[in-house]
Structures are given as C-alpha cells and as structure tokens.
C-alpha cells in the first residue's frame, strides 16, 4: 500500500504518526475514542485528512470556516491551516519511510 493510499483511505489501519510531528502542531491531537484514533483538530471530530482533501478540491479556508459554522462547529482558520500542513508533513514522513523500506 502506498503512503498516499494509507493516508487517504481511512480504514482499520492507522499509519504511524511520529510523536515529534504531533508535538509540533498545537491544534492537532489523537484520541482512540474519536474517529479510531486518526489525527483530528483539537476539540472537534474533524480529521486533518478531510481538511487536506477539501483544500485540494479547491475549498478555501474562509469557505470552510463558514461551512463548519453552519454545522454548529467552531474552527478557526489557524487550525485549518495547521491541519493541511500536518497532513503534508505526515505524508512526507510516510513517503520517506516507504522509500527507505524499498531501497
């Protein structure tokens, strides 16, 4: 399974999250009782990978803040930006790990 597949098919298998990565993003956390332990924005159930996917599809930070608000969810733009950056760095880490394993 490629790192891209591992990250964007949130299933039973949770790819390794380096603790250093989690520590460097204050808005991101994990909890086994929330969305099977997948990284999410603190005090919400919003997965970082969902934010990444939404941004890749062309949703802007401002439109996402508005859409979440319409669902009664308070998320600030900093948290959404962190979610995007966290996913990128996580993907980068998994890619590197995969490369090292194959070589």
């Amino acid at each position, binding site marked *: 399974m490629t790192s891209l597949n591992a990250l964007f098919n949130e299933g039973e298998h949770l790819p390794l999250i380096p603790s250093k990565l989690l520590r460097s993003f204050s808005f991101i956390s994990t909890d086994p009782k929330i*969305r099977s332990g997948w990284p999410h924005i603190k005090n919400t159930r919003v997965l970082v990978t969902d934010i990444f996917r939404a941004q890749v599809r062309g*949703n802007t930070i401002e439109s996402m803040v508005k859409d979440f608000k319409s*669902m009664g969810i308070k998320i600030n733009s900093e948290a959404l930006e962190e979610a995007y950056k966290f996913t990128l760095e996580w993907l980068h880490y998994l890619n590197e790990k995969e490369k090292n394993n194959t070589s």
Partner: protein
Amino acid sequence: MKKKKTILRNKPFFSHDENLEFLKLKKDCNQFARFESVVKIMKRQGATDPKIVKECNNKDYHVITHNTTDFQRINKKIKIGVVCIGLRNEDDWIGRMKKLLRKLSKHKDYYYKNILINNDITIYNRLTKEVNKIL
C-alpha cells in the same frame, strides 16, 4: 405532570458526523430524510464515539459517519441504526445514499441495523443477524 413532547418520525432522522461532505448530503437528500449535525445533538463539539451512540440513541437519531470500524461495534441495548460510509468520494456515495433512502424510507426501517456503504450497500440486522445487499 408535564407531558413529554414527542416528535413523529415518518421520514428517517439522522445525525451526521463532523464532515463538510455532509452539507452536500443535506442539500441533495433533504426531501427523503432529516439531517442534524452531531454537534447540535450533543450540544458540544469533539464528542467521543461511544457518547455519540448513547446520546443519539436517547434522542432517537440514526447515525451517519465515515468511521467504518468503531461505530460497527455496537452494544446490544442500542436501538438506533448506524450508516457507515466507506467511500471517500462524495459523488460516489451520495448516489448510493439516495438509493438506500428510497429502499428504507421510514425511520423505523433503520432500527437495529448496521449499514455499510461501499461499492454496494450491505445491511446487517443486529437482532436477526440477517445480511442483505443492495447493488
């Protein structure tokens, strides 16, 4: 003593998880079912999976989520249905959700059921252990 107000549920009432894609579902399927954000039901955001199941069961809302693992392990006392969506592309799964809503159009049709939406729709009855598929 004050009588507790009960809301009649003809069409299914669902509580959807904290995902942007459910806004599109709400827009597209509003005529078939009522969708309420889990935040509005729990009156707080970031609730854990077990608490959501318990509260939605108390308030009689079926659950729709992308979490295909934890929500399928449900206690026998829980009456509500759980719809787990395994597909990530909303253009794929919203069409299948419409199909499901046409097949199971009443609120009571979802009781004691675990429904998994993937390339096909699998309906598992937790009481009878019967499995049905909608292709």
